């Protein structure tokens, strides 16, 4: 335990003492966290029957054609075959919502469809149903490059970058100090990843379940001894947006598996 604390101190102090201004990772040096997975975790993600997130995708497929709300409509009645209509959608979310005059993430888009078109109650963040639908829709973009090029989102991406580089919490750390400045190094026994959200929702071995990008971000902020932004808060979505912009061009892996 003592050695572990000493190691943590060394890593965290190095980060804290590092240069103040974080630089973006050069585009050609970016890589998905998949690249650093162990052999068995890679195999788990690669084979659909082995990937536990497939169970969520399968749930989502069932929900897709299930009628919901007082309108009595299923997703499929408007959108048809998800393999065609949802192809590439997750690769460009969060996307601009004219109604909100800002970004909304895929979960919020699903809930907008529910409240406005299906006249149904919105699904709770991290509920089995919302994760399942998000995983099913995300699965239709697997293999496609992440795209973030909507000019209407420029200011929201900037806001996300500010959140990413801003020091927060009791130990005064920013996201960038780990994921821009110290990726590839060890934090305890874990490799610090670049933090690209290429596979969400992911099956995280630590969680033993499917979870959203927002859950992962909250997880990080708790570790940073900072107060996490609420699910669906504008800050959470701006961070998601910035991360997807930062990962532009990388390939969607949904549903991913991570330690």
């Amino acid at each position, binding site marked *: 335990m003592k050695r572990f604390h000493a190691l943590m101190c060394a890593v965290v102090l190095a980060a804290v003492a590092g240069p103040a201004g974080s630089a973006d990772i050069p585009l050609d040096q970016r890589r998905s966290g998949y690249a650093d997975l162990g052999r068995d975790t890679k195999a788990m993600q690669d084979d*659909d*029957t*082995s990937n536990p997130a*497939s*169970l969520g995708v*399968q*749930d989502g497929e069932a929900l897709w054609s299930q009628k919901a709300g007082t309108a009595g409509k299923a997703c499929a009645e408007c959108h048809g075959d998800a393999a065609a209509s949802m192809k590439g959608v997750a690769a460009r979310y969060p996307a601009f919502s004219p109604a909100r005059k800002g970004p909304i993430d895929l979960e919020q888009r699903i809930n907008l469809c529910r409240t406005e078109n299906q006249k149904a109650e919105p699904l709770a963040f991290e509920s089995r149903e919302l994760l*399942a639908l998000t995983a099913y829709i995300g699965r239709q973009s697997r293999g496609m490059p992440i795209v973030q090029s909507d000019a209407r989102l420029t200011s929201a991406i900037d806001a996300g970058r500010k959140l990413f580089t801003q020091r927060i919490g009791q130990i005064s750390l920013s996201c960038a100090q780990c994921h821009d400045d110290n990726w590839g190094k060890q934090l305890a026994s874990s490799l610090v990843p670049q933090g690209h959200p290429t596979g969400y929702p992911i099956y995280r071995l630590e969680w*033993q*379940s499917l979870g959203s990008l927002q859950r992962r971000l909250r997880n990080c902020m708790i570790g940073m001894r900072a107060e996490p932004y609420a699910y669906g808060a504008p800050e959470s979505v701006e961070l998601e947006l910035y991360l997807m912009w930062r990962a532009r061009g990388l390939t969607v892996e949904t549903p991913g598996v991570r330690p």
Partner: protein
Amino acid sequence: MARPLVNVPAKVKRGQAFEIKTLISHIMETGFRYTTTGERIPRDIITFFSCSYNGEEIFRADLYPAISANPFFTFFTTATESGTLEFKWTGDNGFAETATAKITVE
């Protein structure tokens, strides 16, 4: 809840050993964990899994709390004749789930 996922080849040659893969949604709560207020979380696991090939049992497993959430198994059997593979999972709190898969033997 998600149906179990079962993966068998659609066609196999007679006499050939082929791989079967299964994945099922289950929390596999060990019974050794505590809530933040100190209460023990009761055990809730799958305790038994079996596979039959045209009615004859070809694989059986006893599971303990050490098996990960969403249990995954792979094993082999020899193709004898075309028919049905039947999978059964049972566990704590009356958990019972089944799945079937068709196989064509050439």
